[in-house]
C-alpha cells in the first residue's frame, strides 16, 4: 500500500465537503485498506476522483439497518489493478432519501445500482434504466429488506 497515493487521495477526498471520515480500514481484519464515510450528495465527485486515479468499482451493495439506526448503508468498494488497495466508502441514507447515480462514471455501477434498487428499494437519481434486474419486471417487493420473507412469518 503506497503512502503517496493515500496522501493524494486524502488531498482530493479528505476535503471537508466530500468525506466525513477517513480511517484506516484495518486490512488484516476487514479486507479494506481504507474506510471512509460521505454524505449522499458527494458520491459522484468521489467516484470521479477514484476513476481518474485509476481505480475501478469492485462492488456496490447495501445494508439494511432500518431496525437499528433507521438507515440504509450503501457500501462502495473501490480497488485498483496494479496493487491491492481496497477502499470502502459508506453512505448512510434515510429510507426516503435518494442518492445520485455513478453509472455514468463507473459503468459497472449501472447493474450494481439496479440490483440495490431492486433488492432494497433505494432510488438512484439520474440512473437511466432503473428497472428490475434479477426479478420479473412485475415484482412489487424488495427481497433483501430485513422484514421481507422471514421464515417465522411463513404461513
Amino acid at each position, binding site marked *: 500500500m503506497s503512502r503517496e497515493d493515500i496522501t493524494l487521495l486524502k488531498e482530493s477526498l479528505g476535503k471537508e465537503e466530500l468525506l466525513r471520515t477517513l480511517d484506516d480500514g484495518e486490512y488484516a481484519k476487514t479486507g479494506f485498506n481504507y474506510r471512509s464515510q460521505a454524505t449522499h450528495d458527494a458520491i459522484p465527485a468521489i467516484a470521479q476522483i477514484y476513476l481518474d486515479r485509476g481505480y475501478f468499482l469492485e462492488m456496490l451493495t447495501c445494508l439494511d439497518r432500518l431496525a437499528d439506526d433507521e438507515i440504509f448503508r450503501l457500501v462502495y468498494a473501490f480497488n485498483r489493478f496494479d496493487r491491492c488497495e481496497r477502499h470502502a466508502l459508506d453512505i448512510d441514507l434515510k429510507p426516503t432519501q435518494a442518492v445520485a447515480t455513478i453509472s455514468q462514471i463507473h459503468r459497472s455501477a449501472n447493474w450494481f445500482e439496479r440490483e440495490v434498487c431492486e433488492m432494497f428499494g433505494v432510488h438512484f437519481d439520474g440512473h437511466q434504466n432503473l428497472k428490475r434486474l434479477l426479478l*420479473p419486471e412485475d415484482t412489487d417487493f424488495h427481497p433483501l429488506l430485513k422484514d421481507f*420473507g422471514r*421464515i417465522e*412469518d411463513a404461513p
Partner: protein
Amino acid sequence: MGLKDHDKDPQILQPNLVKADSEQRLMEEAAPYVSFHLLDDLLNRARANSLWPLTFGLACCAIEMMAAGASKYDLDRFGAGVFRPSARQADVMIFAGTISRKIAPVIRALWDQMPSPKWAIAMGGCTIDGGPFKYPNQYAIVEGADKLIPVDVYIPGCPPRPEALINGILKLQEKIKAGRRFEA
C-alpha cells in the same frame, strides 16, 4: 357411458378436466375392442429408443447433463444423445437446474412448443421440490417442475450423477415401452 357418472364427479366444476376425463374414459371403454396393439407397440418402442432431449440447461445439473452426453457416459448409446436446440424437434425436456420464478413462464412456453408425444424428466432436487433453495417464505424459485408441467421421471441428487441421468432415461424408456403416460 353416460353423463350420469360425471354428474357425481366433483370435477364437473372444471370443464377442461372433465373433457380430458371423458376422453380418457372413452379410450378406456373402447380399449378391449379397438386396439392397434402391434402398431402402438412398435411406435412406443421407436419412441422409447429415440428420445431427443431439448438443449436447455438451467443451472448446475446442466453441466452433468452435458457430461452425460460426453464421451465417458455417452447418452447417444441409448439413442438419447441427439440434443435438439429447437423445441419443435425435441421429445423430452430434461429440467436440469433450479426453476426460478422468472424462467417459469418460459418453461411453460417451451413445453407447449414441443410436439406430442413428449416427456419430461425432473433432474435434481431443485426440480423435484425446490431442493436446497426451498425454505419457508422463499421468493425466488418454483418448488418443483411438476408445478408447471407433468413430469414423468424424477432423478434425485444435487446434482445427480450422469449415471443417474442415464438410469432416469432408461426408466423413462421402460415407461414408454409399457405404454404408460402421465400417470397421476
